[in-house]
C-alpha cells in the first residue's frame, strides 16, 4: 500500500527511535560551529574495493562532515555520465549491496562519529530483502539512505523497516517539487533534506547562486530538518556558497571525475588516486569552513 499523502505525520514520528542519530548529532555540532556541512560522495568499489576503501577511510580527516556512498546499479536513471561510469567500474570490480555494507562495517572500526549515507536504487534493495537490508545496514553503521527511485508514494515497502532499524530516509526535493507536493515529500523525510539544485541529472550543469539562495527558504518554510544542496556543486566556491545558503553541500561528480582521470587505460588506479581525491575534499572543506 502506498503512503497516504493526506495522512498527517508529525515530523518527529519519522525520526527513527532507538539509538542516537549520528546525523542529528553532526548537524547540531555544525550549527554550534556556525557553518554548513561538506558531504563528499564516493561510489562503492570504484575503481576497486581497496581504492574506494582508502578514499572512504581518508575522508573524515580530509574534512568530510558526512559521507555519501553510492551503491552501483546497472540502470541509474538519475545519474549523468560521470557517475554512470563510476557505477559500471564498481560493478565490474564486483560491487554488490552486501559489499557496500561491508565497506561501512570496516569504516566503523575506525570512525564511530561521521555519518554515512547510502545512495542507490530500489531494485538491489528489494532483491536483498527490504527488511533484512534495513537491519543489516543499521548494524553495519549506516545512518541514512537515499533511494532515488522510491518517492514517498512508493515508500511503504521500505520505510517501516528503515524506521524500525533506526535508519533515516533522506529525500530529494527538486526545483519541480511544487508547493502542493513539498509537505508530502518533507513529511516522509528524516535526517536531512537533499535539495537537487537543477532539473537534470547528476554532474551535468550547475544552478545559479541566486536560484539556490531563493530555493532554500521555500523549503525551510515547511521543515525543521537541515537542508543540503547537491547536483552541480563542483568547485570550492560553489560548495562554499551552497553551505552558506543551506546547511551543507554534497559534492559527487567532481570528485569522481578526479578519480576517473587518475585511472589508466584499463581503469586501474594510480598509486596516488585516493590521495588526489582526498586533496580535493580538503580544498572543498577549507572553502566550506571559511564560509560562514
Amino acid at each position: 500500500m502506498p503512503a497516504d499523502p493526506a495522512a498527517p505525520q508529525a515530523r518527529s514520528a519519522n525520526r527513527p527511535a532507538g539509538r542516537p542519530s549520528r546525523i542529528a548529532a553532526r548537524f547540531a555540532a555544525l550549527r554550534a560551529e556556525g557553518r554548513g556541512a561538506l558531504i563528499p560522495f564516493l561510489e562503492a568499489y570504484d575503481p576497486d574495493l581497496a581504492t574506494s576503501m582508502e578514499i572512504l577511510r581518508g575522508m573524515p580527516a580530509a574534512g568530510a562532515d558526512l559521507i555519501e556512498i553510492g551503491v552501483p546499479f546497472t540502470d541509474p536513471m538519475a545519474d549523468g555520465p560521470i557517475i554512470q561510469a563510476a557505477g559500471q567500474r564498481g560493478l565490474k570490480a564486483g560491487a554488490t549491496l552486501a559489499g557496500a555494507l561491508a565497506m561501512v562495517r570496516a569504516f566503523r572500526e575506525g570512525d564511530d562519529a561521521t555519518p554515512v549515507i547510502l545512495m542507490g536504487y530500489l531494485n538491489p534493495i528489494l532483491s536483498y530483502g527490504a527488511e533484512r537490508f534495513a537491519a543489516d545496514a543499521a548494524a553495519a553503521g549506516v545512518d541514512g539512505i537515499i533511494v532515488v527511485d522510491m518517492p514517498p508514494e512508493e515508500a511503504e515497502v521500505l520505510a517501516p523497516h528503515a524506521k524500525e532499524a533506526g535508519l533515516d530516509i533522506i529525500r530529494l526535493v527538486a526545483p519541480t517539487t511544487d508547493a502542493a507536493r513539498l509537505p508530502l515529500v518533507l513529511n516522509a523525510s528524516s535526517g536531512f533534506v537533499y535539495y537537487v539544485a537543477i532539473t537534470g541529472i547528476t554532474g551535468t550543469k550547475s544552478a545559479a547562486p541566486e536560484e539556490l539562495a531563493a530555493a532554500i527558504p521555500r523549503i525551510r518554510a515547511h521543515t525543521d530538518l537541515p537542508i543540503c544542496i547537491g547536483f552541480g556543486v563542483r568547485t570550492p566556491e560553489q560548495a562554499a556558497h551552497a553551505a552558506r545558503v543551506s546547511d551543507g553541500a554534497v559534492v559527487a561528480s567532481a570528485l569522481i571525475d578526479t578519480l576517473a582521470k587518475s585511472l589508466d587505460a584499463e581503469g586501474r588506479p594510480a598509486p596516488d588516486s585516493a590521495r588526489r581525491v582526498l586533496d580535493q575534499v580538503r580544498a572543498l572543506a577549507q572553502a566550506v569552513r571559511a564560509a560562514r
Partner: protein
Amino acid sequence: MNTPLTRPNTYRSGPDAAGKFGGFGGRYVAETLMPLILEVEKAYAAAKKDPAFDAEWRRLLTHYVGRPSPLWFAERVTGHLRAQAAPGLGAKVYFKRDELNHTGAHKINAVLGQILLAKRMGKKRIIAETGAGQHGVATATACALFDLPCTVFMGAVDVARQQPNVFRMKLLGAEVVAVESGAATLKDAMNEALRHWVAHVEDTYYCIGTVAGPHPYPAMVRDFQSVIGEEVRAQMMEAEGRLPDVLVAAIGGGSNAMGLFHPFLDDAGVRMFGVEAGGHGIETVTGHAASLTGGRPGVLHGNRTYLLQDENGQILEGHSISAGLDYPGVGPEHAWLHELGRVEYVNATDEEALSAFQLCARLEGIIPALEPAHALAHVLKLAPTLPAETLIVMNMCGRGDKDIFTVAKLLGEKF
C-alpha cells in the same frame, strides 16, 4: 506489496489510483520526474473524457493509419496444420493484420494518441526510446505530421543492427541519439530518454512505446492499443457470429498483446497466450528475454514488474533474435495477469520463430516481423491440438521488412 492476490470481479478495472495492478506497476521515479508524470496522468484523464480528443484520434486511425486493420482467415496455415493434426483437430487460425498499418506495426496507434495528448499539454518537443526502431519510426512519423521536433534515443548496438530504421527516422526529420551508456540497448535508451526528460521538463513530452514505465503510461498505452481487440471483437462476430476461443500475441514490453487481450479479459471463454522470446532457451542464464517465465519481480523504469535480473538485483541483458523483444522487463499489467493466471505466458525460441517466419511467407504471402513470428510459432504448436471448430486469433503486429537483413544473414544469404 505483499497483499495476497485475490481474484477480482473484473480484470478490466485496473490500475488503481496509485497506478497499481495488484502489486505491480506504480510510480518508481526520482522526485524530479514525479511532478511530470502526475501532470501527464492529469492531462490524460481529462483527454479521455473529451469526445473531441477521441474523435480526432479516430479520424487519424481511419484516414492516416488505415484502420480498421483486416481480420484475415489464414486458410493455408490452417490447412497446413490440419494436415498434421489428428482427425477433427486443427483450429481455425485468423491473423489480426496490424502489420498493414501505416509505418508497418501497431506502434502508431498509441503514438498518435500520445502526440495528440502532448499537443493538448502544450508541449513543444517529443522524445522517444526505441529498440528495433519501430516505435521510433512511428513517433518520427507522427512528429512529421504534427510539425514537432523529435529526438529518438536508441542503443548504439541497436543503431548498428537496425540501420534501415535509423535512416527512416532521419528521413522523417527526427534526430537519432545513439546511446552508449550501460549495455547500449533498449533499456539504456529508456534510461537516457528519462534522463533527458528530467533535464527538459518544461517543454518536452516523453512518448513511451510500450505498456511499461511509470503510471499512467502502462494504462494509457494499453487504452490506445485496445483498438486492436475492440476491432477483433466486432470483426469476429461478423465473420463467425461469436467470440474467438483463443488469442495469441508476442510479448516484449507487451503493448500489442495488451491491446488484443484487454477487451476480452472478462470473457471467461477466451483463452489467451502471451508468447515471450525464448531466445536460445529459457534454461540459459542470459540467452532469452522471457521476463515472466524466466525472471522475477523487481523495480525498473518506474514500475514494479517481472525482470531479468541477477541474484543481486542488477538488471540482465535479454537476448532475442528479435530486437523488439529483448527488453529485460514486461508491462506490469502482464505481470498481474500472469500471477492471476488469467493469461498463459509461454515462450518460443529464436529457432522456432525463424521457422514460423519462413512458413508464413510461403503459405500466406505475408512476411511477418520477427516479433509476431514468435506468436505464430506458438500457434503452430497449439492449433493442431485443438478441435477444428476452435477459433484462434493471432496478432500480426508488424511486418517483416525491417527483419529481412537479419533473417537473410541467419539463413546464410548474401547481398
